[in-house]
Structures are given as C-alpha cells and as structure tokens.
C-alpha cells in the first residue's frame, strides 16, 4: 500500500516538476522576445518630446511612509525630481511612531490644509492634510496607523487629484525618467492600457546621493545577492512573460501606475489584504473582464525602481512568509475565477499557474522530502537515479537563473562592473542550498500563520539610504 502510494506520488511529482520546468523555460523565451520587442519599440520613441509635452496626462505619486524618518527627505526629493511634465506627490504618513512627520514639516515648511481630503475609500482616520510652503506639488496626509500599506494608499487615493496614480514605497528610489518610461504603453494606447508595472531592483550595495542613484553595485552580503537573482528572475522573466499574454496579476507595490478612476471603481485597495498589490490587480482584472472591456495591464521593464531588501535572515523570513500569506489571501477569495470563460486566459492559465506552481509549491516540495525519506526507509530509493536527478534539477534551476542574468545583460545591463556580473553568475550556482530550503520553511510559515489568522505586519530591519552621499 505504502509502496503503491510512493509510486503514484512519484509519477505525479515527476509530471509536476517537468511541467514547472517547461513552463519556466517557455516564460524565459517569451520574456526574451518581449524584451527585445520593447527595446526596438523604444528606438522609435523620443522621451524628450514627452518630457516637454503640455498634453502628458498628470500623475499623482503616492508614497506611504511608516517610520521613515531616516530616509523620507531623500525619498521625497528624489520623487519630486522625477522627470515628468505634471506631477503631484502625496506622502502618506501612516501613523509613524518616529519623527517622519516632524522631519517633513520642517524641511518642506508644511502647513495644514484641511480642505482637500474626501474619504471616499476606506482608511484609518486622517489626522490632518498638509501642504508645503516651498514645494507646491507636495501634499502630506497624516493618518492614524492603519496596520498595512493598503490603508495608507487608500488615504492617498482620497486626496489624489490627477487621472493617473503611481504607487511607490517611500523607501524606494525611482530613476529620474522612470515615470516617462512607465507611461510609454499608456500613452501609446491610453484607452486600453489601464495599469502598468515597472521593474523593482535591489538597492543594497549601490551608491545614493540626494535621493538619486549614482552608482549601481551588487550588494556585498550573500543573502542580498541571492535576492538580486530572485528579483531578476521574477521581473525580467515572470512578469515580462505574463504581461505579454495580458495575464499579469501582480504589479509591485513598490512601483506601479494605475488609472485612478478604475482603482476607485474597484473600491481602492482592500485594507485587510496582506498582499495588497496582487489583490488590487486581480480585482481590476475581475472587474474589467466582468464588464467585458478590452484592456491591457502592461509591464515595462526599463523604468527602474530601486528598493532596499532585507539584509538579515529574520527580516527576510518575515517578508517571505507575508508574501506567501498574501498569495493565499488573494487566490482563495478569487477561486471562483478559475476555469470560467468570463475570466478568459487569466482564469484558465494565469491563476491556475499561481495556484499550482506558486501557492502549492512548498506543499509539493514538503511531500517530496517526505516521500524521499519514506523511500529511503523502505529501501526503494535508487541511489544512482537520485544523484542523476539531483544534478538535473540543480542544473536546470541554475540555467534559469543564469537566463535571467542574461536577460539583464542583453537588455538593461545595469551592472557595469565585470566583477559584479561574475559574482552574480557564480551565485546562480550556489542558491540551491541552503537558501531554497530556508525559503521552503518561510513559505510554510506563511501558510501556518494564515491558517492561524496571524495577520500582524512585522517590520523589516532597514539600513536606510539617509545622508548626502551614502553607500547602502
């Protein structure tokens, strides 16, 4: 009986693993073509014309900040220095316990401006709205702590006045032309393109001056470098490829642009969502598909947002557990979208992929470990075969990661230093052990926390990129 179970389980896992490999290979190939197409399209676009055009649609940049006193001024200055003809910046102070508001008040000479706020979308109570005396494009919304980013962004959306909203993390750095670049698909087809996501990359290790990135370097720590590879894989392969089929259902909370009327139409961010970015985009898909609207949600790989990633295991574990909880928190309520014709490709391909190869991956992995131990105990483990398959799995995973590095190399090439590229490639060989196993545990923790209804947001330890010229 047990032997039979192991045999069935083996076949299932074999098919699962083969399918996941083939899918990822297909995604890599699609992403490569999509990137090349985008690069060629860019050759016929002159950003300087957009930069000076009086017709460019105005954008509100929403930057929620929670205990960001170290970096908020740098961030605000960086965001205000973005190249875009008409820009409004709203910083939402989400009940910071530090001096975030005081620092902003002092630097930007904030004054209360009580007339601007209309609470149409749900959020924790707002304590005050402030306008700057020396920067007319800046508005600060000070609110009670909402416990999550969604709550803060909703408060910002209530105060936003422009037709497009760009949601960023206050601790992230946007490249100067990133708004112009992320608007490229929207300007090319404003009726259909309702949202666009940009690429998020790892800031750790790079040099920052006055809120602007001055030198891109690979981080020193192994944990951060492994995250660089993960980010490259997720954005340059995963998102690029899914967006090519209009099935992109995550626009990173660190950098994405949305049509404001549509965000309001779907009720803004769900304030109790754990993965608010994934949740919003899924609900937007649902709404637009139910309305039978012809639309696109795009991914643009060149407008770069640089963000600080966890540099210690504890913070990383918390972040990854939260991400996995977020995944479950969105997929479960939207399970009715699966395989229903109304939801098109998203319902029949995109979401099933998320269920099978993202959400359930740690469970399958755990079953795999259990089965191998059982097989060893029962003496049915073929050692030779085991080693062969181990090598194959290792080689395939490495190939996909190096594929992501190659995608970066042939398209955007941000790491100019040879040593950085060599280190990046080398780390592709070393990410399978023990990092993968730790990642499995963190994701299982995410499941555990979700089922225990443990939705507390746990802060991440940050270094910050404060100071005039600092190395992050």
């Amino acid at each position, binding site marked *: 009986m047990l032997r039979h179970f192991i045999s069935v389980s083996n076949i299932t896992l074999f098919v699962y693993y083969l399918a996941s490999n083939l899918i990822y290979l297909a995604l890599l190939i699609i992403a490569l073509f999509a990137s090349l197409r985008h690069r060629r399209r860019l050759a016929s676009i002159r950003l300087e014309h957009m930069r000076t055009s009086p017709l460019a649609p105005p954008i509100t940049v929403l930057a929620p900040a929670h205990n960001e006193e170290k970096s908020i001024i740098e961030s605000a200055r960086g965001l205000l220095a973005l190249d875009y003809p008409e820009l409004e910046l709203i910083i939402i102070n989400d009940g910071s316990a530090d001096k975030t508001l005081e620092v902003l008040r002092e630097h930007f000479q904030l004054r209360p401006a*009580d*007339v601007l706020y*209309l609470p149409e979308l749900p959020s924790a109570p707002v304590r005050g*709205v402030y306008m700057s005396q020396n920067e007319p494009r800046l508005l600060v919304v000070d609110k009670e702590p909402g416990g999550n980013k969604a709550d803060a962004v909703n408060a910002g959306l209530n105060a936003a006045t422009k037709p497009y909203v760009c949601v960023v993390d206050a601790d992230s750095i946007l490249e100067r032309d990133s708004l112009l670049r992320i608007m490229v698909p929207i300007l090319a087809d404003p009726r259909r393109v309702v949202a666009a996501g940009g690429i998020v990359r790892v800031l750790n290790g790079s040099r920052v001056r006055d809120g602007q990135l001055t030198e891109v370097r690979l981080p020193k720590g192994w944990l951060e470098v492994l995250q660089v590879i993960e980010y490259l894989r997720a954005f340059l392969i995963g998102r690029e490829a899914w967006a090519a089929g209009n099935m992109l259902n995550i626009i990173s909370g660190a950098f994405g642009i949305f049509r404001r009327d549509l965000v309001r139409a779907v009720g803004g961010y769900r304030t109790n969502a754990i993965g608010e970015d994934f949740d919003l985009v899924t609900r937007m898909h649902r709404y637009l598909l139910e309305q039978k609207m012809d639309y696109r949600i795009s991914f643009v790989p060149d407008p770069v947002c640089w963000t600080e990633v966890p540099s210690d295991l504890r913070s990383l574990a918390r972040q990854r557990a939260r991400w996995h909880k977020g995944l479950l928190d969105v997929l479960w309520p939207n399970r009715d979208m699966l395989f229903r014709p109304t939801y098109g490709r998203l319902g029949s391909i995109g979401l099933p992929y998320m269920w099978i190869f993202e959400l359930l991956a740690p469970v399958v992995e755990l079953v795999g470990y259990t089965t191998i131990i059982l097989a060893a105990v029962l003496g049915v483990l073929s050692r030779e075969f085991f080693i062969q*398959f181990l090598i194959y799995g*290792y080689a395939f995973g490495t190939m996909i990661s190096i*594929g992501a590095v190659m995608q970066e*190399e042939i398209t955007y090439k941000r790491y100019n230093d040879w040593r950085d590229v060599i280190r990046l490639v080398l780390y592709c060989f070393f990410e399978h052990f023990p990092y993968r196993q730790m990642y499995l545990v963190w994701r299982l923790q995410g499941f555990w926390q979700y089922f225990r209804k443990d939705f507390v947001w746990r802060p991440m330890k940050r270094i910050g990129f404060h100071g005039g010229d600092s190395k992050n």
Partner: protein
Amino acid sequence: MGCVSNMPILMAVLISPGTPGRFVLQAIVVTSAGIALLLFFILGRRGLRRRYFHRRDLRVFALRKQWEGILNGSVPPESWRRHSLDSEIVEEMLFEGMEAAHAAGQREEAARLLHVLRTSGLLSTRMHEASEYGGWRRRRALVALGRTRAPEVVPVLAGALEDEDLETRVAAVRGLGGTGLAAAATEMMDRVVGRGLSTPGLTLQNSLLQCCQGRPEILQPYLRQAQGRAREMLSRVLGELATPAMEEDILLLAADPLPEVRASAARALGVARPLAALELLGELVKDKEWFVRLRAVVALGSIEDARVIPILIESLCDENRYVRLRAAGALAQMGPRLEQIVEKVIETRDRFALHAIISEIERAGGIAHLFGAISDPNRRVEATTTLLQALKAGQEQMRTAARGELRPVAAMKPGKAGS
C-alpha cells in the same frame, strides 16, 4: 519560480525503479550545455561590447577631427560611408547638430548639415529603409527621417501612415511631428479628418503641436470639418496654440455639443485671451460638465483682470471640489485684493468656499499680507473687519464640526463630491 529547482520533487521521482534514467542523463547534458552557452554568451557579449565601444570612441575622435572636412566636402563621403560604423556615427552627429541648430535658431547651420545628409546619400538611404523595409528597421528609419526636418521626407512618412501595423503608423506620426513642418501637419490632418487615421491620440496631438507651433491657422479648416473624436483631438491642439485672431473659431468651439471640445475652448481662451475671453469663460464656468468648468477656472486664473474675481468667487462655491480648489488657488494669487476677496467670500456664506480660500491664502503666504493691511491706517478698518468676519465664520465652522455635522478633515458638504 520556487518550484524550478525543487530538489525533493526530484528526489521523490528518483525512487521509482521504472523512471527512465537515460532521459535524465540526456536532460543533464542538455541543461549543462545550456548553462555553458549562456555563460559564453554573457561573457562573450560583454567582451564584444567593450571592444565595440572602445572602437566607436576611437572613431568618434577621428571623425571629430575631420568634422569640418566632412561638412565642407573636402573629406569625400565615400571615405566614411564605406564603413557602417563611421556612417552611423556621422549620421548621429549630423542629427544632433541639426537639433541643436534648430533649438538655437541657427537656420543656416541646420541647412548646412542637412546638405551634408543629402549629398552623402545618408538621407536617401534612410528614405529607402522607410519605404522598402518592414518592422522595427522601418520604424527606426521613420523616426530618423523626422529628425532631418527635410521637406522631401514628408511624403515618405505620410506613406507610412497608411501601413496596417499600428506601431509603424505611430512611428510615422512621431517622424512627421519631428519634422515640425506645416506640410507634415497637413498630411496628418488630411488622414485624421478624411480617412479616420487610427493612432493613439496623445502621440498624434504631440506631433500636431510640434508641426503647428507658430502657425495654428492651419488647423482651422480641418477643425471646421472634423467630427467626433477627430474634433476633440484637434480642438485640444488648438487649445494649446490659439491666438486672438482665432476668436471666431474659439467661439464656435465654446458652444460645441462635445464637452471635451468645450474644455479645449476654455483652454484656448486662457492661452489666446481674445476680447470675448471673459464673457465666454463666464459662461463656461457654468457648464454642466465639471472638467469644462475646471478648465475655465484655470483659464480665468491666468488672466490678470479684476473682472475675473466675481466669477472665480462664484466657482469657489462650485459643487466639484477640484473646481473649488482651482478657484481658491487662483484667487489666492491676487495679492493686493485679498481682503476684498475674503470679504466677498464671507458674503457667500459658504463655509467650504471660505475654508478653501483661507487655506490657499495661507499656503500662498497671503496671511501676512492681510495682517499688513491691518497695519496700514487707511485700510485697517476694512482689513480688520474682514479678518474678524473670517474668524467668526471659522468659529461657526468649528461649532458645526463639534456637532458632528462635518468631519474635521473632510470639509465637504454632503453631495458635493468631486467627480
């Protein structure tokens, strides 16, 4: 991605005695070859690119030294056209030079550079690419042709407007816009109005703006014929470029049944400021569409005339919060008349209007001006009365808030939501 290298899955698979071992071995070989190829590609490409840029730098220095000779023909084009890299560098240098010359208004220099493009055959090569090639190469050629600003490229670019591929049409529109020529505008508008050219509106509008700059009258005949979306689009361009001489057309636009067109008319009135501007804007601030009213208020704010004050005060009581905010912002900029403005706003008995104006005055640093007026013996009585009334109104508002009718921050009347 988490599943890509799921070791346990592999391990589980291996325990089945019937699993095809040869397949796994083949997979290992193929995957290892894939890794080797990728590594070779990454490192090889880096090396090649490094060499390429080094070589390019050297050629740029060499060609810069010969630049005058290239321009006056003493260095014959054959000598540098033979090498594709040299050709590419010279073309880019010519384009950059032409753009700089146009920006600086140096027409002769621009003409000299264009002459080199023509005599060297670079221009005809690009025209050939734009006519005969397909895909991205054609699109790149179309945009490059736009940078030349040569009249002879207009028919080639216009021809590409007929292409079935949207991206090619967009590149053609961008190219035509780049020329900045009236003929290019005419080609675009002929197709927009006559044949329903389908390209993204913003790209087309930007190109038309570039081509109609300084000569908006070429829009007039098309605007009269255009209907629907074409009319909306052309009126938006006119809104940026209108002159007082176009008053008659603006008048027609202001009465158009399409709200987008009326909004553009408001913009045009603010830009051109014809004699009837105030009267027309006074009508448009009462429009049923909030964005038409908003544009009208913005236009009024740009007109320095005391007669706009009562109209803006009326807009301060608008049902739309964006209109109110813009009106308050415009009024707050009218420094010397602030106390009269505040007084008149008090007379409206609209607490939201008062709140908006005080907030905007404060933001614009006008509160000090009001206090300054108090210290002026001639204006003290008037200013003090105004401030007292404002304070009284503020207290009234606080009392209302305390009664719970008004949320302290959300200072909005029920039903006065912004659209």
